[in-house]
Structures are given as structure tokens and as C-alpha cells.
């Protein structure tokens, strides 16, 4: 028996900001969930199960928050699952929810991911003082900056590329009302003049710390037929993982990322992602990860990804727009960031992305990664249902 096609019929986000002091965590997730229900014109009674994700519990200090959030998400008396795969969790949460629909376990599933970074300090949560170990000497950006230098060495990319990505994403964010950073006076010169925090990573080339939530309603064919607005259809989805550090790890282009993308393309019948995929929402917390992931995801040959960025291919009006929403560089509620990528890909496929809608969005990739390039999750969504 073939899988049930999975449709995205409702999407909701909060306006992402540095600190939502006006709401509890429950109030935050509720807001995104209600917007997704409204978008789908459904009520709590229409939801068969809830799948929720967030990054490590230390990020808010609420252990097993899904227990406390069951009331806010109408999950009492229904199955409720919590997913955790570090920064990629928003993506893998959506895929777990999609699996429940594809397997015909449930007809309609609410999936949601969140982070309220203002309640804690993510850097603290990631660098506990483990006895006997040498403390991490460099902070989050310092962990990734040497990989960026390795990419530059391998690809020969000029050191100007990182600023181009940041300038593009921050301008795209101006067209997205939900994005955290709205830098109306952004210029390329300002990005280039921002301080080098972890050389080769500048301040303006790093992501903010945000409070926010993102929710989607996933449903089967019958649910899609009842939907008030065009659905996005899942054409392929996959997760892969590998250790954070191991002998032979390619931190610039991790094998797990390549394998994950290949699996998605196989499911969706994609032979040439550069030609057949119209736009990408990828997880870029530091600007240089755009060219790195373009290669890892097969949109460019090894060492060539930066040329797509430099030549404007990844601009909103380019041939392969990347991070039309402004991306993680403009909005980073960590646990939600992966789901925002997946949801923004679906918004594009539905033609519902508003000012940051791209003209051609027949097939759009949503991508997330987390840990030290340890977890990968991706889905490809389209305007038309998969051919069976």
C-alpha cells in the first residue's frame, strides 16, 4: 500500500522578537497554533494528534514542556509527542507529524515548534562547566568560524561573500512581517563595516536570539480537499544524523546532509535540483553557510556554491531564491527555526508568502540542521500533489 499524500493546509507564526515578555510559553505557542487553525479554518476538535518540538530544555529551564503545554494546544485526550534534534528540531518535528499522516495513523495533525530564548541563555545551556574538560574557548560563533575558514580555503571563495548573504537576507526580512530583524536602513557597506566577532564571521553575519513559535496543520487527501486555501504537498522528506566529531568528519559538507538531500530528491524524482527546484529555505545561522549548504544540498558542485551567491542567483528575484523570508539570519527562535524553514517553503508553494512570494514556486526545499552539523532534516513541498 502506498503512502498517504501529506498536505500543509494551515500555517501560523508569531511575530518573532527578542523578548515576548507579555506572554507565557503557553501563550506563545497558543498564538502560533491558533493562527494555523484559522488559516486552515479548523478548530481544536478537528485535530487528531499534536507533535511538538523545541531545542534543549535548558534553553528555558522547563523540563518536558510538552506536559505543561498540552492544555494550550488542545492535546488533552489526544496523542502528543515531543521531538528533539537540537537546532534541526523544527524540521524533524514536522517530519514526525507528516509520518503520522503518511502512515494513515492520523488524518489531521497539528505540529508546532518554539523557543523563548529570552527566558534563558542558549550559550550557557550549550557550555555547561563539565569537570576535567577544557572549557569551550570561543562561544557559538567560534565553534563554527573555523569551518567557514576551511570552506574558504577549499573553495577559494573571496572573503566578500558572507556579507552578500547577510545583506540579501536582511533585505528579504523587510518583506516578511513575522521576521525578527527589520533593519530598514541596511546597506552592504554597513554589513561589511560591522565588527569581526570570530574572524572570518562578522557581527552582521550572525543570527539574532529570538522568542517565537511556528505551527502547521498537516492533513491527508480528504483534509486537503476540504481546505479553504491551496495546500502545499509534501513531495519528499528525510532525516539523517552523524556524530558531532569523528575522524573523517567533513564539517564543511557533512555526509549526513548530502545523504539526507539525496533521499529527499529520490522520493520526489528530482534528478537535477538546480534546475528542478525553484526556491530554498535553508538553515543559515552564519551567512557563510549559504554557499556551504548550496554545495551540500547539490545545487552547486563542490567549491562552486559561492558563485551562485555572488552572481545574485540566490536573491529574491534570482534564478534560485534562497531564504526569501529573511532566514535564520533575521529570525532565530532556535527550536522553531527549522519549522519556520519548512513552513516558509510551504507558504511559497501555496502562493501565500505575501511580499516575499517568489514568482515560480512549484517545488520548494525546506532545510534544517542542528547540533555541530549533527542532525539534518529536509522536505520538498510543491503546489501539486505527488504523482502516485
Amino acid at each position, binding site marked *: 500500500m502506498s503512502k498517504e499524500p501529506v498536505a500543509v493546509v494551515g500555517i501560523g507564526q508569531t511575530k518573532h522578537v527578542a523578548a515576548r515578555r507579555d506572554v507565557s510559553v503557553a501563550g506563545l505557542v497558543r498564538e502560533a497554533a491558533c493562527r494555523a487553525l484559522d488559516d486552515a479554518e479548523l478548530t481544536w476538535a478537528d485535530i487528531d494528534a499534536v507533535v511538538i518540538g523545541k531545542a534543549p530544555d535548558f534553553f528555558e529551564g522547563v523540563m518536558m514542556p510538552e506536559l505543561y503545554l498540552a492544555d*494550550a494546544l488542545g492535546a488533552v485526550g489526544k496523542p502528543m509527542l515531543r521531538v528533539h534534534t537540537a537546532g534541526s528540531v523544527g524540521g524533524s518535528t514536522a517530519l514526525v507529524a507528516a509520518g503520522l499522516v503518511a502512515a494513515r495513523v492520523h488524518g489531521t495533525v497539528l505540529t508546532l515548534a518554539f523557543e*523563548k530564548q529570552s527566558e534563558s541563555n542558549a550559550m550557557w545551556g550549550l557550555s*555547561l562547566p563539565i*569537570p576535567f574538560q577544557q572549557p569551550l574557548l570561543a562561544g557559538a560563533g567560534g565553534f563554527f568560524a573555523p569551518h567557514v575558514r576551511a570552506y574558504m580555503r577549499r573553495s577559494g571563495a573571496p572573503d566578500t561573500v558572507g556579507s552578500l548573504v547577510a545583506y540579501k537576507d536582511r533585505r528579504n526580512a523587510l518583506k516578511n512581517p513575522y521576521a525578527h530583524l527589520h533593519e530598514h536602513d541596511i546597506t552592504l557597506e554597513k554589513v561589511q563595516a560591522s565588527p569581526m566577532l570570530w574572524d572570518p564571521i562578522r557581527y552582521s553575519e550572525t543570527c539574532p536570539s529570538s522568542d517565537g513559535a511556528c505551527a502547521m496543520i498537516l492533513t491527508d487527501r480528504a483534509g486537503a480537499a476540504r481546505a479553504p486555501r491551496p495546500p502545499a504537498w509534501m513531495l519528499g522528506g528525510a532525516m539523517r544524523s552523524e556524530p558531532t566529531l569523528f575522524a573523517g568528519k567533513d564539517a564543511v559538507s557533512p555526509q549526513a546532509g548530502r545523504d539526507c538531500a539525496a533521499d529527499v530528491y529520490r522520493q520526489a524524482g528530482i534528478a537535477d535540483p538546480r534546475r528542478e527546484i525553484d526556491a530554498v529555505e535553508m538553515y543559515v545561522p552564519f551567512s557563510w553557510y549559504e554557499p556551504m549548504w548550496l554545495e551540500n544540498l547539490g545545487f552547486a558542485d563542490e567549491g562552486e556554491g559561492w558563485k551562485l551567491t555572488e552572481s545574485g542567483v540566490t536573491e529574491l528575484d534570482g534564478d534560485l531564491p534562497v531564504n526569501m523570508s529573511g532566514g535564520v539570519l533575521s529570525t532565530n527562535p532556535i527550536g522553531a527555526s527549522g519549522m519556520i524553514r519548512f513552513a516558509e517553503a510551504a507558504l511559497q508553494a501555496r502562493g501565500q508568502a505575501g511580499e516575499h512570494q517568489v514568482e515560480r514556486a512549484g517545488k520548494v526545499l525546506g532545510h534544517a540542521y542542528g547540533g555541530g552539523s549533527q542532525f539534518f532534516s529536509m522536505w520538498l513541498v510543491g503546489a501539486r500533489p505527488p504523482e502516485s
Partner: protein
Amino acid sequence: MPEVLKAPLVVEFPFTRSLGPVQSAFLTGLRERVVLGVRTTDGRTLVPPVEYDPVTADELRDLVEVAPTGTVTTWAWNHAPRRGQPLDTPFAWVLVRLDGADTALLHALDVPGPDAVRTGARVRIRWAAERSGAITDIACFEPYDGEPVRPGGSTGEFADPVTGIVAAARLDYTYTPGRAQTAYLDALAEHRAVGERCPSCRKVYVPPRGACPTCGVATTERVEVGPGGTVTTFCIVNIKAKNLDIEVPYVYAHIALDGADLALHGRIGGIPYDQVRMGLRVEPVWTPGARHPDHYRPTGEPDADYDTYKELL
């Protein structure tokens, strides 16, 4: 087998909580010696109040005051109170259904012993002398044999409401780095870097983990590596990290010790930060009493060829 190391690990953080409208009113009420519940769609009163109906998922905002007196619905004796608990002498954990409420609140009951508490016992709130808008504004419950106290008519409107609290959390662990790390640390004490080789893929891990992360087999064969190594990649840190007493800028590098198949991380010194490069040959610099090398400095050897370390970035 040598003794395996262990040490205390304390994880603590002052988490902040944005309360939202319902918890804000509830905690502000406690500050004013008022206990608030919330009315559900089907007319029940939940104390403590919640933001969303556990049955219908409706948003709940209809706050009602309940009495400071109530009835014990069940209890458990706590014979040895721990740090941070409401009382420092033995007490009963009680669930109390306050008069006017349909659900029970968890708190402490101050009685001399387990014989003095029973399900059905009448109790009342003992307010803390100093109140700030926290559950600890209720110091505890105490036995009460008077008439039920009529609740006031508060609906949760207060001047200067509490909108956020700090919830300090602390976890106490005993951490042990395990056999492989202990052996590594013992060797470090003699300024030697000793890793372990995987019997399957032959890769040498420094520090060793006791198992190979790719082959999934135990590693036992000890291999001394270094002391020299190669900077495979790096960044220049220009911002001061909290709790780190290092002058910026400094170089944070991946260093492949000679003979190791995975780079470790360390600081580069003894050379201006802007002259550090991929391929630079370095060696550890020790300071007295330190468990790990303080930093790595150039050896003066010619730079390593990129092809010799490109798999170790």
C-alpha cells in the same frame, strides 16, 4: 584498574518567566493576600488557575477569588526536608481544596507529626511576612478549626502587577569522565597526550572516548600522540567570552596532534594573532598546576603541506 575520577557538577541558572495574564494575576494576588482561581467554560473553578481549559482548550480569563481556608484532599509526610522546600522542619505535603475551588493546590502543612494530619482536615493559609508575588508568599498551611472565611470579590485587577519572576534552578550531579578520559587525564598530568586507536577503522582519537563513534566498538589500544601538531583551521576571537580570562584578540584553532586522526581545540599563543595560518606547526605550552595545556605555540618548523591535514579540518 586505576581509580576513575569523579567530581561534583553543579548546573544552575536564574531562568526568567514571563507570566502571561493569568499567572500574573495569580501571583500578584498572593502578594496582596488574595487567592485567585479561574472559571472554566463548564463553571468549575481551578486553583491554581491555568490559561487554557484542560477539557475544551478554551482560553480562560475569568478570574475569581477563593477563600484562604480549605480542606486537605490527600497528603504525604516529609520526614527530611531538603534545601529550598517550604519548611525546614518535617512537614506534610498536602493537596488543599480551598473553599470555593474545585481543584486542589499543592503546598506544605505545618503540623508536629503525621498523626496530626488527615484527609479532610481543615486548614488555612499562613501568609509570609514579606511577599513579592510568588508561590512562597504562602509560607505554608496550618490547621484551622474556625468558620469558613468568605472570599473577597477580587477579579484580578491590581496596581503594579508582577509580570515576570526569576525561577532559579539548580541541579547537583556527580560527574565521572569514565575510564578512557581518566587515563587521558592521568597522562596529561605527565604532559603526554595519549589517545586510543579503534581496532576496526584504526583511527586514533585524542581525547579518547572509550569507543569509536563511527564503528561503535570499544577502543583500548593506547597510542601516544604529539606533542607537536598542525593548525588545521582557526578563527580569531575578538569578543570576550563570559568567565574566560583571556585577552582578545586571540586565536582559537583546530590542532591535529601528530598521530591523531581528529583535531582538538586550543588557543594559539607566542605569535601575533594575525600571523597564525592554516598549516602552522605548534606545540603545547604548560603552566604549573594546569590540567590542560595553556595554549600552543609555533615550533618554528616549516608549515605543513595542505594535503597532509586537509582531512583533519
